[in-house]
């Protein structure tokens, strides 16, 4: 069989009855080579840069996601709230939006800050890292308005602080300082947010 192998291997030229054209074959190959060389060349450094951008974006998204705190994690307890029909306004740059409910007894204070706190009637709040909004019942003059934020499931208090500054009978400033936890890569650390609200009594 070795003889046969070398005989076949040493055959030169095309089979006698072949109609194949070597030049035609080259044209086909050349056109494929042309197509390949016309492909857009992307330098390696730009591939690395694209990879890094992608990695950065993913990391950013992951970190942001991890710092969001679920609605069910917190309970807001409002102590000694007193209601009145006072319109609610703000006197702090951080506060950028006030929504009054129809009966003017509830207001939502939204603020640009690293955190968002929203409270519903059931006293649940939502904390996230984008903005802070706090629906609250409008306190009357001289009332002490205290917020207590507790974290589920152990209800350990995180922070609450209210400072009041009576500028006059009809206008009051309430300063809230709320320490909220921020979650970053699994670690919990406290971050302090403060805002001031001003409300007027009728």
């Amino acid at each position, binding site marked *: 069989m070795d003889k046969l192998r070398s005989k076949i291997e040493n*055959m030169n030229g*095309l*089979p006698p009855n*072949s109609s194949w054209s*070597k030049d035609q074959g080259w044209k*086909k190959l050349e056109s*494929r080579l042309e197509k390949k060389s016309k492909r857009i060349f992307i330098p390696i450094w730009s591939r690395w840069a694209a990879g890094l951008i992608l990695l950065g974006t993913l990391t950013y998204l992951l970190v942001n996601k991890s710092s969001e705190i679920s609605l069910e994690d917190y309970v807001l307890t409002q102590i000694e709230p007193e209601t009145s029909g006072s319109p609610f306004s703000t006197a702090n740059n951080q506060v950028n939006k006030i929504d009054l409910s129809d009966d003017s007894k509830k207001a939502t204070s939204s603020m640009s800050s690293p955190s968002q706190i929203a409270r519903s009637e059931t006293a649940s709040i939502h904390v996230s890292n984008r903005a802070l909004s706090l629906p609250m019942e409008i306190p009357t003059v001289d009332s002490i308005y205290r917020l207590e934020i507790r974290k589920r499931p152990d209800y350990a208090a995180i922070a609450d602080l209210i400072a009041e500054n009576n500028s006059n009978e009809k206008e009051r400033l309430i300063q809230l300082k709320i320490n909220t936890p921020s979650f970053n890569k699994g670690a919990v650390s406290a971050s302090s947010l403060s805002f001031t609200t001003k409300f007027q009594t009728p």
Partner: protein
Amino acid sequence: MKEQLLIQACIKGDRKAQNELYNEFADRFFRLCLRYLSSEELAEDVLVEGFLKIFKGLKDFQYENTQRFQAWMKKIMINECLMQLRKTKMITINLEDAPQIMVDDDILDHIAAEDIYQMITELPQGYRTVFNLYVIEGFKHQEIGEMLNISEGTSKSQLNKAKALLKSAITKQGIKYG
């Protein structure tokens, strides 16, 4: 151009060098492809694909000598043929055990090259593939079994059938011994 220089030029995408390498080996590899495949059209397609792979793979090829270089190119071509056969499901291996037919290998050794080549191309696809891989390329039955996903025994029986068919063709046609 010296082979190593030719390779370097091919790596750089020098079309003239690529054409030179093609012209040097196209006929031989076309013959090889035709030994595995059923038509010249398919053989040409596989030849083109094979050369594209060769040009692409040259940058990673460690040149030692011309024999090794040619063996490397040939392996690429054979792989391309087998891929084509698998793709078009052209390999149909009869799994029934063939009766052992004693074939005198010397007969095949004495047939003129062109005649035996022609007879090989006329073998059924399964027999032809095993015959090519074992007799011409020198692979072992175990290796063929892995390549074609068949058992070693099946490879042996396919070879036996191929030889029997060739012998029968020789007897029928009264081909003269070379």
